């Protein structure tokens, strides 16, 4: 597997400084509080609005839709800084990461004109409707059904694990538009569903901590106009796969527990604990190695290359690393994990431990990824 080696330019480094200065200021103003796994658990529409004002939502998109036409490396840097600071970026996350690129690739001009500028302004949030109750890793076993009616489709069924759907305006929903045939991947389509439509019910799935990030979304005869079909009817599976690469190789598969690691190293420095720092350096070395790979994938993605296998690699190894951080840190420092603690370390440790089980499940379980990688490797 050969990926490009990306060295940041002076301009890119300056951009990083700009983002960092912004975050540093907002942090010290108390606009937000650093959290581990903030891209899932930090949902704050006001903060997203601030980000939009900086031009940092949809920053790689064409200017005619309000984007900044910046490089995906710039966006990579931006995302890294958000996560390193544990900033609350969950509200606009999916629209920025997935929906925008999806519409740019497969959407109609009308869809782009309608949605992208709103997303860019931080006024329109998206959720993703992919998994279904009981589907688990078998994503293709979609049962949610759209039936053709005059001027549109009537959708019945349910989606599950939809992150932050309770705050989202729309959902890109994978539905079955043709009956099940031998190939279960065919006959699927992507619809944009207005979550305020009649017949939509959103009900929380509480996380093990009691937090509300995930939702079940039920569709009871929900009407979706024709113009809300994304791309080609029946091509939904292939379109969805294309999204997965964006979803799997980003810094959010490496940095979810970074605020803890950072704080731990600062604490070890305060303690003048050389042994502890030496141990922690192994984690930093892993992080650095993963980051090289992840940036390499981002570069290939930008150039339109095929990254299914390396993206699966980044996700499977990166999320294992995210899980490892709290387990190593707790052995290096005498710290008691507590969600409501005043001390940052205790809080970050609790957040990391409690969110860790999800890392290797969401966005493709490690077990499924091993299969994808092995098949890719065997095919050469």
């Amino acid at each position: 597997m050969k990926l490009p080696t990306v060295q940041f330019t002076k301009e890119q480094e300056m951009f990083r400084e700009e983002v960092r200065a912004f975050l540093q200021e907002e942090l010290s103003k108390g606009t937000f509080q650093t959290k581990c796994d903030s891209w899932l658990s930090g949902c704050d529409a006001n903060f997203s609005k601030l980000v939009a004002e900086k031009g940092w939502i949809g920053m790689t998109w064409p200017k005619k839709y309000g984007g900044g036409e910046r490089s995906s490396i710039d966006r990579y840097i931006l995302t890294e800084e958000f996560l390193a600071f544990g900033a609350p970026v969950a509200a606009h996350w999916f629209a920025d990461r997935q929906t925008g690129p999806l519409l740019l690739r497969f959407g109609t001009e009308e869809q782009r004109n309608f949605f992208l500028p709103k997303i860019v302004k931080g006024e329109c949030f998206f959720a993703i409707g992919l998994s279904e109750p009981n589907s688990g890793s078998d994503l293709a076993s979609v049962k949610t059904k759209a039936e053709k009616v005059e001027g549109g489709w009537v959708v019945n069924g349910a989606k599950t694990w939809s992150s932050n759907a309770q705050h989202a305006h729309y959902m890109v929903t994978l539905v079955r538009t043709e009956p099940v045939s031998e190939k279960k991947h065919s006959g699927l389509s992507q619809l944009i569903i207005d979550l305020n439509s009649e017949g939509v019910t959103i009900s929380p799935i509480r996380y093990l901590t009691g937090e509300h990030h995930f939702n079940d979304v039920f569709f009871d005869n929900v009407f979706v106009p024709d113009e809300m079909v994304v791309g080609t009817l029946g091509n939904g599976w292939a379109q969805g796969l294309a999204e997965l690469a964006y979803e799997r190789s980003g810094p959010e598969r490496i940095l979810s527990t970074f605020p803890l690691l950072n704080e731990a190293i600062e604490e070890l420095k305060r303690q003048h604990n050389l042994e502890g720092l030496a141990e922690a350096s192994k984690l930093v070395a892993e992080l650095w190695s993963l980051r090289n790979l992840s940036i390499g994938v981002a570069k290939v993605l930008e150039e339109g290359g095929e990254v299914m296998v390396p993206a699966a690699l980044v996700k499977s190894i990166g999320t294992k690393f995210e899980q490892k951080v709290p387990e190593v840190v707790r052995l290096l420092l005498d710290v008691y994990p507590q969600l409501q603690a005043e001390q940052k370390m205790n809080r970050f440790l609790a957040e990391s431990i409690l969110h860790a089980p999800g890392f290797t499940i969401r966005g493709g379980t490690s077990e499924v990824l091993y299969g994808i990688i092995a098949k890719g490797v065997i095919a050469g």
Partner: protein
Amino acid sequence: MSEMKDMIVDVVEKIFNDKVEKETVDLLEENTWPQHIWDIMFENELQQVAVREEHGGAGGDYEDLFHLYRLMGKYAAPIPYVEHTFANVVLENANIHPMKELTTVHLHANPLAIVNAKVSGALHYVPWARYAKKLVTLATDQGKEFIVLLDLKDAQMKHETNVAAEPRDHVSFTDAAVVTCQPISQEQLVFLQNLQTIATICKMTGAIDRAFELSVQFSKEREQFGRPIHRFQLVQQHLATLAGEQALTAAAMENVIARLQQGEVHDEVAFARLKIEDSSRIVATSAHQVHAALGVTHEHRLHHYTRRLWAWRDEDYTGRFWKKELANRWLQSSANIWEQLTTKKHMEHI
């Protein structure tokens, strides 16, 4: 081993099977607890297990008590049974009469100071303090250590919880009266450290028992790609891992208790504590991976066990404490590690 062990264990397991539903455990997150289960335990004199006869004990010994602790873990029982009964163990070891009213205990750090027969100082993460009447803890008076019994109505309290939503309160005293106190020798303290560590090991063993059971059950019921998931090699690997850790921790617990009963427990407490800390990580990881998305929901009860493992592994005398202790012991010994492992040591204490 007391002959009543199997009977007591059966009785309590039956009570818990009947009464400790998932919703009952959830109560803790709503800042309340099922007093009625406590009362049923009381009616059955289960709070009196291992209490000395002259103190109204209901029979049974430490081994019986420890097996009940395992059940507390196995059912995530949301009652302060371990805390109350262990507080009484401490009291009896200090020759203080055990308590009937709800009492908790905090030994492992921050001893309070006694000045002019009054106690001052602060304790972090005192289990169940908000619901308890009395607290058993350590305090120092002019360099000497005492086991003290304090009245919690004299305490200032800030409610906190561990990652399993169990009450772990911040408790502070300013010139509080001592209900009673007794000096404690270093040997006695080491013995109590051993006992409390075994108590934690037993709770954790129970939580591991259940995380394993739930995973086996889930892997039979859950289907993916058209067949039960236990048919997939990668799930089998998780099941094998879980079975291994369950067997190892159960054997560790039983061996430590057997040694304790023979009055020969020594490094084994440290070994079992270190092992169960590592097993907790392995078990939580594999159990959650088997359960996948459903297991991280609040609705599924797996988290009652994994969160307890994550909380308990960092409470009381932890692996951190015991591995330092072992390092110090070994440094002072000329016996090599094989001799250490294979030669029984008689407890120097008590």
